[in-house]
């Protein structure tokens, strides 16, 4: 029952290692290859069933930026001359690692 609900629901919840929750549209979350696979309905992992992804090794600050990037990416999909996203220098390294981890 839960599986069908989550596969239908338009929003998913992304949770950071330190407990911050981000509710974003499913399609937006799927900018990340990792999250997309995680939510794959056919795989029946717990994330897919509940629609809730806990990312243990990413902090809330970084995850916020990541979610922002998801939106940015989706908004500017298939466009040219897009303005760069504003990234605070202190987050750079951690964002890079998160990007690698999330296959974004």
């Amino acid at each position: 029952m839960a599986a069908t609900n989550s596969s239908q629901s338009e929003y998913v919840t992304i949770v950071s290692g330190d407990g911050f929750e981000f509710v974003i549209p499913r399609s937006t979350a799927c900018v990340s290859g990792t999250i997309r696979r995680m939510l794959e309905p056919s795989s029946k992992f717990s994330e897919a069933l509940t629609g809730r992804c806990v990312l243990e090794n990413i902090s809330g600050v970084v995850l916020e930026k990541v979610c922002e990037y998801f939106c940015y990416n989706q908004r500017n999909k298939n466009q040219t001359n897009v303005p760069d996203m504003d990234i605070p220098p202190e987050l750079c390294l951690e964002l890079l690692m998160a990007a690698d981890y999330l296959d974004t």
Partner: protein
Amino acid sequence: MRNRTEFQGYELTLHHQGPTASRSDDFDANWEIIQSALKQIHTKNASHLSFEQLYRNAYNIVLISRGNDLYGRVQQWEKDWLDTQVSARATAAISPPLLLAKDVANVQDQANERRAAGERFLQVIKESWEDHQLCMGMITDVLMYMDRVVTADHNKPSIYVITMALFRDHVLRAPIPNHPELVVANILESTVLFMIHLERLGHIIDRPLIRHCIYMLEGLYETVQEEASGKLYLTSFEPAFLEASKVFYKAEGQRLVETGDATEFCKRATTRIAEERERCTYTLSPLTEPKIKEVLDNELIRAHISEVVNLEGTGVRTMIDNHRLEALKEVYVLSSRVDGKKLPLTAAVQNRIVEMGRDINASALVTATKLPEKNADGGKKAADKDKEKPINQQTTLAIKWVDDILALKTKFDSIWKDSFESDQVMQSAITTSFSEFINSNTRSSEHLSLFFDENLKKGIKGKTDDEVDALLENGITLLRYIKDKDLFEAYYKKHLSRRLLMKRSVSMDAERQMISKMKMEVGTQFTSRLENMFKDMAISEDVTASYKTHIKKSGDPDQKRVELDINVLTSTMWPMEIMSNSRGDEVQLACVFPRDIERLKKSFEEFYLSSHSGRKLTWQGNMGTADIRANFQRPNGKIQRHELNVSTYAMIILMLFNDLPAGESLTFDEIKAQTRIPGHDLIRNLQSLAVAPKTRVLKKEPMSKDVKPTDKFFFNSDFQSPFMKVRIGVVSGGANKVENQDQRKGTEKRLNDERAGSIEAAIVRIMKQRKKLVHAQLMTEVLGQLSSRFTPDVNMVKKRIESLMDREYIERIEDDPPTYGYVA
């Protein structure tokens, strides 16, 4: 999915500094978790597993540079799993019946048993495969991070590909216990082939099940490079399938031909083709469709089609005879699959057309050959009346000939359209055959012209424009087939002239339509003379009208008694035999017209020549008609009046009796001397006046059918007719009929003369343009130029060339190769 990531370049430098690297560098602990998860996934128990956790574990392993080890461990674990669990299940599902009947021949007895076992086995294979696929999909997702790094760093195939190959080697290629020479794949193959064989025999099988097994074979490759050509389906199953099909259809083809029913053969072949196409879509792979089609084409069609087409009693010939469009269509479709030219079919159709055409020709010629014999028996004059009937019959036959051909043509047109899909090749084959047999009848031109004549005189009465149009169009199609178009022109001209002069044509519109159709079909040159005939007719009308006004103006009361309708014909445009005054060798003097008529004639000549000086008018008494009012004195004193419509000659003859006291007679010779009507025409006119039962205006003594020079003729005042107006036709003169042998010779001779002229003209035209030409080339050009009118005889052309050289139009320049030059 790493679209638009500006971080990409740094990826490899990060591996040793992951955020959690310090926390877990314990490979074994991580592997334990993953290993247990693998098992959970394979036992379909993944719902409590966290993707993120597993992913993070694999991530951590990769970060401590043990990714390659993880890859190896997973591979090993999967191998063990497949060996112990999946393979065991698959081999266990193989029951004895599947092993026994390797050959599909004796299917009957154990069919059901084997089938049930086969379905069980396929079901197991299918499930194993689908489970494996699904689980490996999940595992690959979880291990994605490892996959990304390891495949890139160590140049290894993705873990998914590797485990698929493992499935191939450890499940499909697992040996079967007690049968070391066999592997699971062999059983799979033979089972699927067996199922297909069952289906071909008309059983119902579980198509989706087989389709899934085929999907599996399509999803597996010989190598980890996964080239499209390396699909297991293509490397192992398909060849076996094609081979089995070949054997099956060879036997089937043989069997069907032996039953000797072409229709059945085609029906079966067509269904088989549809079946195989369907099989490729629903049971096997679309990839196989062209190949199985090839097998069918070769084994079933190409090997047997010509035999089938020519099958006695059921082949194409019978289909045509019985007008079985559906069957023909099947034959056509089958033929066109294997052969663009469809040789056996075209040959059969052509043969049949020519055969049927010959029959038509033969039936038309039956009486034609009888006729000369009768002539020989009956003597010259006696034949006249006797000939009447056969000639009429022959005319009917000629028209029947055309009708038959048209019917045949319609038949084949409908076959061509409905069965042969309006195929170009077939059309030209049909056309050739028609033209072949039509031209094999030497009288085809005459027959066709008679057909037009008949229709334009009577046939189109009461028909709508469309019907008339269709009728003429049909005739024109036949004209297209006739090679000697000039011969047709000659006949048509002759028949047309009769129609025009005797006003026998039903509708001038139809006549014009006909001409314009011919013009489109054969060209302007062909119809120009025919058109001129129409023009002459039109001008003549004007001349007649203006002559009448002229007479009115001049106010000569005497002239009013006779009205004149005149047709002034241009002698070159109209058929020669009508125009010529001389028959045979004796030169004919112009006949003597009665005084009144003579005066009228003079007056018209004066009138005509005053406006057209320099022309010469020749009066053609044999073509004209006259209306005369005749009074018959009855014995009781009453006077019966009739209007007689007679030929000009008959009018002249009757006028002689005006001057004769009642009861007096004239002999044949007297009449001849007084009128100078040609003997031949005189006999015919006297026959119609004195012999024909309904129009006996004259009495003859002695009363007999033949007219002899000593016969006496009296005016028959007892003449009776229910009608006020009486039409007295001239015996065998007016109507257009089949020519007798002599006339034909004449026509041919005239035709040859005309052809000689055409050939010479063509040669001179060509030489004038080319100045110098090799003989062979000249021949080709001449033949090419004239082919639209007729097919010139090569010898005739040679003779014409020689004659032109004699007359110094051209000269021989070289002897080898023979070359001619134009003499200006």
